[in-house]
């Protein structure tokens, strides 16, 4: 018997008023239907709760699976499958499929006219995929350059090291996987992964369109009710518990680079957490156009390249400070300056103009993310997987950003961005200093021991 979890068709008097209905099927699949009558656009997305720990040694398996599920259909000529996708594109539709750190995404969007085709494509991906050498090779050839780039990119090398410190239980492998992992995948692995991962208890199906939610919900039911229940992943943490002190430092010798790189990574609350807006605000204050870290003249003197990334994830969100300097002997000063700025964020009042500037930018960025039905459907999937409040995300998506206050931002900085929480990873050049070397190579591979 289906359980009706919530029915929230309340039109708010202020702000967006899209209607939302959610439901959970007996097989555990969660359905999210949103009616947006003022947008002549439809999107259907299947979000699968799967991260690198579901890949074993076959790093990149989820990305290959997502692509191969859409490119091959059982008993259908591959050219016909391709033609179907091309035809969809010619009528304004688009298909997107990829894996992120914590999930797999299969989504189709376009004008409402494409709804039957969107559902057919997704249904084939869930129930009739054809995994063979051709579909595997096609997906692999798309992903291999990305895996090679990540292997050779010092940012990803450092991030991987930082993640090993922050989340020792989660494999620190990017969604594109590794060259070795991609090469090792066989069609049978895809079949086994499909059977294990494309199951009700790991799946959230989202539909957005101008039609009534009931109709959208009916379509989602038809799409998901045939899935086996399977096994769920452990529930995500809806509110983040402060991590234990995790300060660690690793130093890597960089044989080709000429710049010293420092990455300071912090585990922060997840996307669905009520603290998430404060995390976003903290990042914006540190790294926006007037960012304390990115615009600080002292820091810029040490490190002309300093950036702060917020990586929103369902389970293991991270804030990452990356600095590059041609003066390796200044790394320690750089580290102390950054920690000083983080301490200021945690302990000193936030001037209202600074808050206001950060808030304005965040509101705009969120509005742009919400603009298209396709990107909105994927964003709702992320929020659903991370245990966030879907009603608020649909009916008052900007409210939390409008109301997040100084105390919440300080609390985030105090709890998560202290020196004891940082995973510090350094890559120091083994070559002579920059001024003694004729050919700097800032993007060379990381090599050497830990």
């Amino acid at each position, binding site marked *: 018997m289906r359980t009706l979890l919530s029915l929230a068709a309340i039109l708010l008097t202020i702000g967006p008023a899209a209607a939302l209905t959610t439901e959970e099927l007996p097989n555990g699949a969660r359905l999210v239907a949103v009616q947006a009558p003022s947008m002549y656009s439809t999107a259907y997305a299947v979000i699968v709760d799967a991260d690198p720990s579901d890949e074993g040694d076959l790093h990149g398996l989820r990305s290959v699976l997502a692509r191969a599920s859409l490119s091959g259909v059982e008993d259908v000529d591959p050219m016909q499958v391709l033609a179907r996708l091309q035809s*969809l594109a010619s009528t304004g539709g688009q298909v997107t499929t990829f894996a992120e750190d914590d999930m797999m995404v299969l989504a189709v969007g376009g004008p409402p006219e494409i709804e039957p085709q969107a559902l057919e494509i997704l249904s084939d991906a869930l129930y009739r995929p054809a995994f063979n050498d051709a579909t595997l090779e096609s997906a692999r050839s798309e992903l291999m350059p990305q895996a090679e780039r990540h292997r050779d990119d010092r940012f990803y090398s450092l991030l991987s090291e930082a993640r090993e410190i922050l989340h020792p239980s989660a494999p620190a492998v990017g969604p594109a996987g590794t060259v070795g992992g991609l090469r090792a995948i066989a069609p049978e692995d895809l079949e086994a992964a499909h059977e294990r991962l494309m199951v009700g208890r790991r799946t959230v199906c989202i539909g957005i369109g101008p039609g009534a939610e009931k109709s959208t919900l009916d379509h989602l039911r038809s799409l998901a009710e045939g899935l086996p229940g399977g096994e769920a992943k452990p529930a995500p943490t809806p509110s983040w518990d402060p991590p234990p002190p995790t300060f660690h430092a690793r130093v890597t010798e960089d044989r080709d680079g000429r710049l010293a790189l420092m990455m300071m990574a912090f585990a922060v609350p997840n996307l669905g957490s009520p603290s998430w807006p404060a995390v976003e605000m903290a990042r914006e204050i540190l790294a926006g156009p007037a960012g304390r870290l990115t615009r600080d003249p002292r820091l810029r003197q040490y490190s002309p390249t300093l950036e702060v990334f917020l990586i929103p994830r369902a389970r293991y969100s991270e804030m990452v400070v990356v600095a590059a300097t041609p003066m390796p002997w200044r790394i320690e000063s750089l580290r102390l300056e950054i920690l000083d700025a983080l301490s200021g964020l945690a302990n000193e009042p936030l001037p209202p103009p600074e808050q206001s500037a950060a808030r304005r930018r965040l509101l705009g960025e969120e509005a742009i993310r919400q603009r298209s039905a396709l990107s909105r459907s994927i964003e709702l999937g992320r929020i659903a997987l991370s245990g966030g409040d879907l009603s608020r995300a649909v009916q008052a998506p900007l409210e939390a950003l409008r109301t997040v206050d100084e105390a919440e931002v300080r609390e985030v900085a105090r709890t998560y961005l202290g020196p004891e929480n940082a995973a510090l990873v350094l890559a120091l050049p083994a070559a002579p200093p920059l001024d003694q070397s004729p050919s700097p190579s800032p993007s060379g591979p990381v090599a050497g021991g830990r």
Partner: protein
Amino acid sequence: MRSCHHGRGRWIVFLLALAWLPSALAQSRVIGENIETEQLANGLRAIVLPAHDVPVVTVVALVRGGASLEARDQRGLAHITEHMVFQEPVEGTSTGLLPQTIEALGGEIRAETSADSTRYIATVAPDGMPEAMSALGIALGDPTFTPTRLRAELEIMEKELDEVYASPIVALRGAATKAIYGDGPYARSAGGGPDDLPSYSVADVEAFHAAHYVGSNMAVVVVGDVETADAFAAVEEAFGEIPAGQPQVPAMASPPETPATTLSAPGAEPLVGLVFVAPGMDHPRDVLATDVLLGILEHGPTSRMRTQLPRALPGIGAVGAGYLTQRLPGHLYLWIDPGQASAENCIGVLKSILADIRDNGVSHEECLKGARSALLMHAIGADTYTSQAESLAFYEAIDSYRFAVEYEDRVLTVVPGDVQDLVARYFDPDHALVVVGGDGP
């Protein structure tokens, strides 16, 4: 139709989509009808479509006329003015007011100049709408033009135009439009030519701005999560002080006629095709009928060009058709990549397709299919508040925003007789401009 240009592809989904279209439209309109307008004392029209499903607002500030208002010695000036307004300087910074403001609001902004208008398109959160509107009002209404900025923008534009003019398809279309329009408003690219730019001074830009960026020649379209009254108030506040000026309407000395000749364009893309003068917005029913004709000729796997051309001309490459609705008569072009076929045969078959419609008409079913495909293209261009605002602004620039709103009702009223009559009047194959690109026949 805002633009119609379609490549090859398989069309199963297209047919299914067309079959499903009426039920989809029963649920929702492509562009909502709850639009309100207000005219400021200076003549500027504000058009507001409130919609609250997503928290985003798009503002389009448009200046009518665009490149079609340039005199012979002013080619490219509308485009230069657009660049200069966009980069309205902010003291102590190198970024212009508009990009700087919109970036601070976390939004997006771009500007474009076409033959019929210049449009500034900003998308922000509802909270940022008044500030975005204010920046648009300052930049468009009271900009400061400096020689340093002009030099910098001219350098940027020269690079842009060099890339555009290096394209062989531009050479082909350029030759065709010159043959049709001579020295008329649509004769040359809306961006100007590389040779036009360096001679302009700040005084030229100021004069162009003073004449065209005036209330009676402008409109502001707002679509998204705003209350109508708030949007009107923001428009009034930002644009109310702009001088009224005089409305600017481009004109052609005489209506263009399709020159019934053959034009060779060596060095251009190796395509062959037919080009005709097509209806402008002064004949709105003909505009709709042309969109339907395009559906009959080229959209979908059962369209006439896609079924008859490969059958009659084995070995041809891509085929296509295009028509851009403009204030004044624009042009329709039908083209073929001849591949193994001769140019003469390609032209012959293309002409026979049009002659059949002229002489024998089309069925009700075929007409309805053409109308539905035109409607689908209209719908694809209105999938977000941003694209809805752009669609409203596009038609407001050349006629009225109402055309965008009513399109879905009106295009379905086109009947077979309209299409046959249209071909006889505008697209008679015996009076076509034949264009042969590349090495020729």
